[in-house]
């Protein structure tokens, strides 16, 4: 734990650049290591993953560059390189590495990246949908019935074969639906990035920003719902 308290405003800033070195108490100017005593510095718990990787909050990013940065930071923080150091430095190395690994895992995957950005910009996206999206309501209810029937059916029977064919078709439809949602998300990602690049502080820009975030949230939540249904379906017919 950093032991500091932060208000919401300085959340966005690189905490380390402003704090003191835990070891020599000098004003910190270096990025992850104290300029004066070269000790590794704890990454602030409030540092967001984009900042950690030195990236702007955009949804399109170059995976090669992300990986290169991950490797560079791993070489800086990994506990393997702190075996001969003090206990305090070993603890910092362990915590920083764990944080770095989480950050990389989150940013590497486009969906997790978007969910994380949404969380930063507008609060958690994790409220799990329990009812089907409106445009899929009928289909999903029917699918649930078919699944129930299939589960209780004799797998060798002719009826089961018919149900299986139907379920296969449903799976194809849902997977297509998932791909459509991912395409929609891609468009929203591009719109988000373009808006951020323009950096306008106008009322229409703020409204556009709110719309994009809301649409992203809806599609992400629908996509998760459909994905769970598909997984359930696959597990049942496997």
């Amino acid at each position, binding site marked *: *734990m950093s032991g500091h308290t932060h208000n919401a405003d300085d959340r966005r800033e690189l905490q380390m650049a402003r704090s003191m070195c835990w070891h020599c108490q000098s004003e910190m100017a270096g990025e992850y290591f104290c300029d004066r005593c070269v000790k590794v510095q704890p990454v602030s718990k409030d540092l967001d993953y984009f900042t950690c990787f030195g990236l702007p909050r955009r949804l399109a990013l170059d995976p090669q560059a992300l990986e290169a940065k991950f*490797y560079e930071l791993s070489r800086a923080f990994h506990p393997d390189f702190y075996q001969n150091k003090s206990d305090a430095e070993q603890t910092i190395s362990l915590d920083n590495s764990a944080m770095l690994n*989480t950050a990389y895992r989150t940013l590497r995957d486009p969906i997790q990246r978007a969910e994380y950005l949404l969380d930063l910009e507008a609060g958690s996206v994790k409220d799990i949908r329990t009812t089907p999206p409106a445009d899929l309501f009928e289909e999903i209810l029917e699918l649930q019935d078919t699944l129930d029937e299939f589960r209780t059916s004799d797998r060798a029977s002719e009826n089961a074969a018919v149900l299986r064919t139907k379920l296969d078709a449903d799976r194809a439809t849902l997977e297509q639906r998932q791909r459509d949602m991912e395409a929609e998300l891609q468009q929203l990602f591009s719109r988000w990035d373009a808006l951020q690049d323009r950096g306008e502080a106008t009322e229409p820009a703020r409204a556009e920003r709110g719309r994009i975030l809301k649409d992203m949230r809806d599609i992400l939540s629908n996509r998760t719902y459909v994905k769970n249904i598909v997984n359930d379906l696959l597990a049942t017919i496997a």
Partner: protein
Amino acid sequence: MSRIVGIDLGTTNSLVAYMDHGTPRVISAQNERAMVPSVVSLTDNGLMVGDPAKEHLTRNPERTVYSVKRFMGKSLADVQGELAYFPYTLTEKGGVIRIQLGEKSYSPPQISAMILKELKLRAEAFLGESITKAVITVPAYFNDSQRQATKDAGMIAGLEVLRIINEPTAASLAYGLQKKTQGTIAVYDLGGGTFDISILKLKNGIFEVLATNGDTHLGGDDFDQQIADLFLAEIRTQYGLDLSTHPDNMQAVRLEAERTKIRLSDELKTTASLDLPDGKGRFTRELTRDQLDALSIALVERTLGPCRLALKDSGLAPGDIDEVVLVGGSTRMPLVRQRVQALFGKQPHCELNPDEVVALGAAVQADILSGGTTDMLLLDVTPLSLGIETMGGVMSSLIRRNTTIPASAKEMFTTYVDGQTGVDIHILQGERELAKDNRSLARFRLKVPPLPAGVPRIEVTFLIDANGILNVMAKDMRTGETQSMEVKPSYGLSDQEVERMIEDSFKFAADDVNARKLIEARLDAGALITTTEKSLADGGHLVATGEIEAIRAALSALVTAKDGNDPRAIRARMADIEQAAKGLTVAMLDDSLKQGLQGKKVSDVT
């Protein structure tokens, strides 16, 4: 910083290696092979480890422990199915298996510690310095309890275990160092008792594990058992003999099965042969490679499922793998090579000695930790998902399998009843939906100040360190106080137990040193007896009868001393022989020179 060695603590064989100016090398004792059989025997002359212990597998089966790695971090219930195959007696105390050896019982970490000590002694003798730090390898698919048990074994052996690393990733370090490979590799590691598959990306000195999978109960032992079962069934029908009541013969069958399997890696057919008890003579049987393949195919197929899962988890197709590396003695089987080649669609690499490459990689990792190698870095993953039991007995995952380690997750806990002072937390590892189907790692009770329900907020951090071992910390968010907690492992030794075992091991250290001196003295005495007898046969005619009698007397004194327990007495009798046989040695040398130098005397040529 003192030297750190790398140790491969294997199911059937163990090795120790060190880094020699940038090149990893295995350490072998004088005139011996580097591999130490992972066998411990309690003989009338004390504890023996390695090759001398292996001789007792058939002579002293109830008191000779092999494949102890299968029991690391396990409860008796976990291994119920295979108990019948082991001639030694297993019991359980506090969720930990105990192995009965004579009067005493030992936990698997204690037995493993005996093997580690032997390796430590070898390294110390070879390097001429005291060794107190080691990197020890474990199967990648080992769970937290099994890793912890391995760490305990190191501590009991007097070693500070600086890192537990996964066998296939260790192998990749040795392979990558030698081959300077870049790209995606699959390491297929089929050892004596365990199977692992790891998929790695190698780039500019970073070894990033993408996914790992495996089976901690599948290896060479299982192939041997298939062959042994066949022999046993045939012996029963042909001779009406049930060898399962003869532990010594059971071991002989198992060892002959292993030898037969090994021969069939090079030959297309071979003949197994066994002495039978009760004057029933000898059982011989021809076995072809095709027959072995038929016995093995189901086991080999069992390795392919984990391979496919690892590919899936890393988001790759078989064609994306640039190189396949084979590790572990069992990958010498032609059937294994064929099936692996068929799955990945490319010829696997087996240039590195599959028995040694894991220990070599451990030495590389040891060198990284001591700051010697700075350009290589291994980023490994946790093989199994970690979670906690939630309402309704369901497991809630906190850290998913194949997450890069170190990895951490936080979870907030509160109370449901006013004044509640504790929250029970049950930590699990595994991929199944229900808590009861997963591995229970530990239970602990979080202390909570008595407050109205829902008010306390305790944040628990689950941290998997670079060893793949779990650490738990709790913090009261209201007071900011951190809480230390007693985590009781579900299947493992408590800290106090480990400490007691370390003390015990010091107590027995004196006995161990003596036992080791005795073993060495006996080996040397055996060699001297053989050469002296040969000299008497070859050159007895060259010296006086009195001299021959003196040598014979000294010989029989040594034979008597060799059966005793005093290494110093053995050494003294050996010196006697050397003294008594001096004349004979000179006469024989003279004689051989005479043959070569046309009758010149030693004094003429020197």
